[in-house]
């Protein structure tokens, strides 16, 4: 059972990772995007952390919904609606009664796929989400799997997002949304390890 408290810990850790790596994420977004992914995510996660701080007794659904709303209304760009939708779908699933992490994450993944119309192999955050969610279902998520998934975006040609304008020139660059998603799941691993 995934609790509101675990969710809060998870998102706090994720926010810290984003804050620490803000410049790095924007740097990754420079050669194959528009150089703002770190700023976008940092703006969103600052809002998430502020919103969560005011909601100490919230249930899981409320936590997810708060996160979703903060991301949707503060991030903008491509990552805002995608991360926002992911948490909105988790809020919906938890409201429908689930507290099972694999089920929650599967709902989040489906939301991202639907919102963005991308699939694994398109050099987006989905190249992390797809293998990670599969691993969570099989209960074998670990740091190596996350790192491998993130690195897998490096040789890819992008089919969605700004990097798709580059054709072959995107090869050799990590996808910034995949890297930030890597932080998300690393934070989740650390949260689970503490529990």
């Amino acid at each position, binding site marked *: 059972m995934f609790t509101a408290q675990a969710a809060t810990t998870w998102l706090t850790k994720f926010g810290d990772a984003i804050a620490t790596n803000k410049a790095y994420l924007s740097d990754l977004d420079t050669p194959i995007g528009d150089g703002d992914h770190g700023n976008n995510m940092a703006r969103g996660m600052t809002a998430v952390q502020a919103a969560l701080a005011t909601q100490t007794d919230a249930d899981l659904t409320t936590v997810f919904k708060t996160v979703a709303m903060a991301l949707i209304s503060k991030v*903008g760009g491509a990552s805002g609606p995608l991360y926002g939708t992911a948490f909105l779908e988790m809020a919906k699933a938890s409201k429908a009664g689930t507290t099972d992490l694999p089920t929650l994450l599967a709902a989040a993944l489906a939301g991202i796929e639907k919102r963005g119309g991308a699939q694994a192999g398109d050099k987006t955050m989905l190249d992390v989400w797809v293998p990670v969610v599969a691993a969570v279902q099989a209960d074998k998520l670990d740091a190596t799997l996350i790192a491998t998934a993130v690195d897998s975006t490096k040789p890819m040609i992008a089919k969605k997002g*700004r990097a798709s*304008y580059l054709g072959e020139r995107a090869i050799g660059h990590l996808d910034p949304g995949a890297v930030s998603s890597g932080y998300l799941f690393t934070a989740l691993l650390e949260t689970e390890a503490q529990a």
Partner: protein
Amino acid sequence: MKKIINAPQDVVPEMVDGLVRAYPQYLKQVPDTLAMVRSDTASMVGKVGIVSGGGSGHEPAHAGFVGQGMLSAAVAGQVFTSPTPDQIYAAIKAVDQGQGVFLVVKNYSGDVMNFDMAKDMAEMDDIEVQSIVVDDDIAVKDSLYTQGRRGVAGTVLMHKVLGAAADQGASLDELSQLAQAVLPHLNTVAVALSAATVPEVGKPGFELADDEIEYGVGIHSEPGYRREKIKPSKALVTELLAKIDERLHLDASHQYAVLVNGMGATPLMEQYIFSHDLLDALAEKGIKPAFMKVGNYMTSIEMAGISLTIFELTDAKWLDYLTYPVKTIAW
């Protein structure tokens, strides 16, 4: 980075505030948002609203085109970052007169998704919303397997055409048909001499040597299709026009509208010289534009460069829409 700003994270709210306070006769801000709607509400009564917007950094787009005969509202995102759905939704609500609202979106993942979410929100409120995703940048290959072409300066001509039609009472469906009809005839390609610096990033999106230019760049420092040594204006015109001609097949028996658009730091002096060479090159093909505009319309902060948009006027009414009078800050 040397800019006339305060804290980089305050750039957008301060800019919007400065704009609406400098031009209260044109714009008012939807409270607690970065959405700006037409002050002249009387001119909107009974008409379909037209809302556009996108990341900031493209000024005078989009707020500079808000006014009778053009946009009803514009939504400003963070610099080079799509606005969020709640903001877009606030603009939709502010302009809806019961006739529905039409959204002009540029083809970027972020813009498409955020405007889509705003549309969902509006529909839950029983506001009818339709939209067009503008993708006029022919520098990028269109393909089913990619994000497709980007929306750039041609978007301003889309605003103009739709705004004129809406002001003359076109319905939401009619506007949607008009937008679909216009879209394939908008063709833009750019050349950059230097890149823009996003204030929060603090360094240019790409580096060009003192004698280098890049063809096909986007309006967010997206890379283009070729980098080479700077050439005379005449040669730049040849390159960009050939690129457009590949797709458009310029023909003396057709009518065209032309937009020569400065990217932000390029002075009008250079834009007029480029126009001179362009008009010469078109004249060689027997073409004299039916409509032309030269200036900074869809910029990329302080990027230096020019984009060229050629819009084939396959319907005679479109020229009337382009010349239809407007009351805006920047058209």
